[in-house]
């Protein structure tokens, strides 16, 4: 018979909509509106998992986000998700869930022996294994055991097929929590015309308030909720977010929230991450019930009293047949009556206070229900195997009062306010003895608290506080600065509001644990299997600070973050130290409040959407002509253009050889381009480059090197003087953005007196370099100016037009060379880039022109010893190291120059740029180190390392650039380039870092 424990009526479930689901291989049925937990309980299933450390059987403990036990593996395949709380998982058709931490099954679990071995698994066990003077063999055994035992479900092995979304939002007032207080606050704020966002983690508004609470001002809860939510839904400036958990509070009132939209993965997006910037926040996050530690308080059938009542009222589920209620406060009496109304035989209320005796005499409903109350009594221990079957009731002194058969223990140790977001908002907490809980005190942020987060309260109080909090939030939102100091809306000094019909009282007397029989386990933190004894042991071993206690015992470190256990842990520590709870204090409430699916954090920003792609104007031509692309920052650059049957290496070698023999064209659009204009550009360049600029004539360009403030080489490039007050600077592709930023800073902060204006034009111009002995012949056919050596000498710059099939393209022509050959650069407006590229190729066809990629470009520059960012310019090298000391103008100051003379930067032992040639024809290994003797015993003295290496088709050998200690003195010396990682070595000869045309005649010819 299915759903044996379902009541015939009542609650929010729809009994006309049965839903089939599977748990631990068995098929069950529930109803629409159920959670997985309520549906399991309706079927009488309490045992849902095994505990983390001792593999003890565990049942459903709560009805909400605080759940420590009922964590299940939800779904299968790519959609599976571990550690999902059954208590917050909406039931849906075809849902498949499995218990965790058990093998082979939840009923028969081999790991249960951990419970038997528990005397050797005390608090801090993991840390102690490092300290024990045991042999490594022992550690291996422990480790295997620990890892095996510490399974908490498993992540999917396939990529997550679900889609996730991000949404940014702004509002005057953000209301977190839509219980009675939150709804009242939202309504008041909306009535004032403010823009309001309300987020509520459950699917319905004010669920707890609607669970059969007493009427407020003669209005039934259902009606009140209906009125409030209808009014809010009709307000134009109100956004209502159900199924949305505010999980973190960040700087300047930024609240992160996760909206669960469709957990079946079918709808899209599955979840939405909200980043809400609120002028003020009303925190109405309520309070969570906590347990009491007694022997075997973890047996399935043990449940928070309020949660047991929620299952009865909200879901129409009897959580058992015979219950014992154990409490230290008044709230459990209402829960006992709810269980009674649901047909559960409430065998007794065990009340640790004197109040129990009072209640028995005075409460008519208890008398009518014939529920016996034991005052001044404790549940000393529970018994049972996979379900509680009996409890022992004793006096505080341990004298036996009764032994009661039952299958449910409904326990209430009081309520802990959900202060997480308040604490994250740098809010101070205060221990409130009246509610035995930590409540909000003051926050410097624009956050106001209302309702049970200020301490357990009635619906009437919550509603009043909600409205008052809205007023205060509106004042904060409207004020000049939102950083006013504010306290919680409840005036802690004033007497509580006068009781009215249904006024809830707590009258809690703190009780964290019950004296346990020898050897029995009394759990404080159910998820992490932390017992009362663990806390006492930590204290006796000197871990007395609350943060140390947490880490040593792992109390509160589970996926539930100790929502039902932290305050009890603090209480136990306070008792052990004999100090008030205030003195112990709380641990830090770090975000997220509840686990956030990792996929929601990147949202759509994964795969191809991680970062934007930059393509040059000629990209499509490259792709159409077989280019293999390589990433250069965000850019896609052609690596090489392999022909059919040709490898990439062969293609690059062919391309590099063709540049030296005929002509090649390469896309250099990615270079950073910065236009500089103004009267003082030359002076500015003098200050940022190591070389001299005030003598650069119009129509000329020059190579320049920039230093960091500490004297290390930062970047290089050319700058051209296009007109009297008009210059164009180029930077490396990698540094384009950073150099622009530095220029802006220098011009606005350091040297505002200079008449210089800078703007980035990287994307406005497409650029191609045409190199090779025949490049002049090529250019002569395609540009409309004289390109002879006399008319357009090395380092000349001129405007020109590029002839295309129909008409011309305005262009800038530069005579500069990176390859060491006669070479030019052609810049045209970006949208004409492809026309220019194709025109040059057509003009070059009779001369054997070929496009070449970054690989050939790299080979050509290594052959010439030209340094690049990231290889030779590695953030450690000086101009001297790189052989550029002659560029440093002695007669002027520039950035980085004052510190160049420091001894460490001028030491003769520094690593200096050299060339290496492997005459044997063998390959220079990747990432090679330079050593004198590769067979010397380790550690082998290192003389330097290879920075760039390639096969040179023009030299006919493997060559490299390297930084070698005293390298310049060592030309001709034979050393070894070794890679212990690749187990490769090759003998190389040190030489000057130039392999082709050392006199530099080609580029000037």
């Amino acid at each position, binding site marked *: 018979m299915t759903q044996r424990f379902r009541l015939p009526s009542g609650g929010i479930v729809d009994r006309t909509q049965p839903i089939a689901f599977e748990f631990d291989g068995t098929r069950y049925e529930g109803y629409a509106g159920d959670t997985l937990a309520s549906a399991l309980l309706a079927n009488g299933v309490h045992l849902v998992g095994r505990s983390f450390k001792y593999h003890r059987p565990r049942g459903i403990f709560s009805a909400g986000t605080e759940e420590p036990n009922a964590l299940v593996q939800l779904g299968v395949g790519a959609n599976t998700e571990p550690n999902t709380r059954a208590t917050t998982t909406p039931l849906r058709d075809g849902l498949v869930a499995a218990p965790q931490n058990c093998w082979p099954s939840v009923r028969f679990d081999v790991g249960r022996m951990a419970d038997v071995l528990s005397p050797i698994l005390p608090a801090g066990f993991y840390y102690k294994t490092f300290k024990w003077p045991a042999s490594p063999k022992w550690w291996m055994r422990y480790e295997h055991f620990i890892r095996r035992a510490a399974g908490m479900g498993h992540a999917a092995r396939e990529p997550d097929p679900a889609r996730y979304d991000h949404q940014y939002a702004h509002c005057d007032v953000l209301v977190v929590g839509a219980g009675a207080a939150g709804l009242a606050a939202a309504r008041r704020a909306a009535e004032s015309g403010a823009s309001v966002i309300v987020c509520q983690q459950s699917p319905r508004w004010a669920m707890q308030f609607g669970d059969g609470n007493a009427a407020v001002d003669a209005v039934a809860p259902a009606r009140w909720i209906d009125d409030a939510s209808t009014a809010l839904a009709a307000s134009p400036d109100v956004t209502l977010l159900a199924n949305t958990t505010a999980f973190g509070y*960040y*700087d*300047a009132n*930024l609240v992160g929230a996760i909206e669960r939209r469709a957990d079946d993965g079918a709808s899209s997006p599955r979840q939405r991450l909200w*980043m809400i*910037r609120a002028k003020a926040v009303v925190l109405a996050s309520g309070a969570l019930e906590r347990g009491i530690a007694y022997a075997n308080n973890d047996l399935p059938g043990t449940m928070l009293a309020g949660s047991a009542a929620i299952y009865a009222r909200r879901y129409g589920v009897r959580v058992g047949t015979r219950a014992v209620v154990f409490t230290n406060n008044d709230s459990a009496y209402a829960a006992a009556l709810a269980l009674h109304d649901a047909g559960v035989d409430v065998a007794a209320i065990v009340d640790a206070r004197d109040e129990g005796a009072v209640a028995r005499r005075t409460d008519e409903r208890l008398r009518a229900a014939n529920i016996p109350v034991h005052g001044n009594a404790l549940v000393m221990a529970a018994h049972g195997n996979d379900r509680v079957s009996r409890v022992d009731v004793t006096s505080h002194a341990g004298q036996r009062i009764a032994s009661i058969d039952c299958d449910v223990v409904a326990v209430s140790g009081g309520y802990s306010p959900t202060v997480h977001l308040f604490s994250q908002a*740098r809010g101070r907490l205060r221990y409130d003895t009246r509610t035995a809980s930590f409540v909000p005190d003051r926050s*410097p942020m624009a956050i106001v608290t209302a309702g049970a987060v200020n301490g357990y309260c009635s619906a009437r109080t919550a509603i009043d506080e909600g409205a008052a909090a809205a007023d205060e939030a509106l004042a904060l939102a409207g004020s*000049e*600065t939102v*950083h006013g100091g504010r306290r919680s809306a409840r005036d802690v000094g004033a007497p509580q509001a006068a009781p009215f019909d249904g006024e809830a009282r707590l009258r809690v007397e703190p009780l964290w644990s019950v004296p346990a029989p020898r050897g029995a386990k009394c759990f404080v933190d159910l998820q992490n299997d932390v017992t009362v004894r663990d806390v006492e042991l930590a204290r006796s071993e000197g871990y007395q600070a609350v943060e140390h206690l947490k880490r040593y015992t792992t109390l509160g470190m589970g996926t539930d973050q100790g929502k039902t256990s932290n305050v009890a842990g603090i209480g136990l520590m306070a008792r052990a130290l004999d100090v008030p709870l205030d003195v112990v204090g709380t641990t830090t409430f770090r975000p997220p409040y509840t686990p956030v699916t990792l996929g929601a954090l990147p949202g759509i920003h994964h795969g191809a959407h991680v970062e934007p792609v930059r393509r040059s104007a000629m990209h499509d031509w490259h792709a159409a002509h077989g280019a293999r692309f390589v990433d250069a920052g965000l850019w896609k650059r052609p690596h090489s253009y392999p022909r059919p049957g040709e490898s990439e290496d062969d293609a690059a070698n062919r391309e590099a050889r063709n540049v030296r023999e005929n002509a090649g064209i390469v896309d250099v659009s990615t270079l950073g381009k910065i236009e500089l204009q103004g009267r003082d550009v030359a002076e500015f360049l003098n200050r940022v480059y190591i070389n001299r600029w005030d003598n650069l004539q119009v129509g000329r360009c020059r190579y320049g090197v920039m230093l960091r*403030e*500490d004297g290390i080489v930062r970047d290089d490039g050319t700058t051209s003087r296009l007109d009297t007050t008009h210059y164009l600077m180029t930077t490396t592709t990698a540094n384009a*953005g950073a150099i622009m*930023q530095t220029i*802006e*800073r220098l011009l*606005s*902060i*350091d040297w*505002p007196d200079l008449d210089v204006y800078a703007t980035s034009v990287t994307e406005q111009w497409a650029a191609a370099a045409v190199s090779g002995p025949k490049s002049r012949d090529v250019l002569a056919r395609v540009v409309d100016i004289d390109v002879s050596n006399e008319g357009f000498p090395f380092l000349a710059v001129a405007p020109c037009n590029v002839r295309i099939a129909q008409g011309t393209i305005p262009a800038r022509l530069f005579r500069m060379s990176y390859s060491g050959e006669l070479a030019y650069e052609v810049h045209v407006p970006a949208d004409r880039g492809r026309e220019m590229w194709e025109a040059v190729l057509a003009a070059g066809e009779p001369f054997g022109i070929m496009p070449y990629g970054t690989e050939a470009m790299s080979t050509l520059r290594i052959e010439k010893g030209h340094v690049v960012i990231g290889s030779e310019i590695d953030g450690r090298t000086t101009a001297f190291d790189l052989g550029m000391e002659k560029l440093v103008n002695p007669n002027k*100051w520039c950035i980085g120059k*004052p*510190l160049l*003379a*420091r001894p460490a930067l001028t030491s003769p032992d520094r690593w200096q740029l050299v060339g290496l040639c492997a005459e044997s024809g063998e390959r220079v290994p990747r990432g090679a180190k330079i050593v004198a003797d590769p067979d010397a015993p380790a550690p082998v003295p290192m003389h330097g390392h290879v920075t760039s290496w390639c096969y040179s088709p023009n030299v006919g050998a493997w060559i490299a650039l390297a930084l070698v200690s005293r390298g310049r003195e060592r030309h001709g010396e034979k050393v070894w380039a070794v890679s212990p990682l690749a187990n490769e070595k090759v003998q190389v000869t040190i030489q000057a870092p130039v392999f082709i045309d050392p006199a530099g005649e080609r580029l000037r010819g």
Partner: protein
Amino acid sequence: MMLIPCPWCGPRDQIEFTYGGDATVRRPASDAPEPEWVDYVYLRDNPCGPLDELWYHGAGCRSWFHVLRDTRTHEVLASAAIGEPFAPGEG
């Protein structure tokens, strides 16, 4: 994530900005002795409380400007364009 009041663009998320460090540090005269340069390049105060610092709005107006930020709380107390006095922040 801090809300940084750009003097030109108004309050914007921190991700649009680059940090520029202590704004009170001044580059020494070009002929200053080496220890002054070492101090300028390497040594920074780490004040507890309000700090006048520079930020760059790279994803916005591309301006550098001053932010007065409390290093203990990330509270932005004021911002100012270069050469202007601090005005109360809107962040």
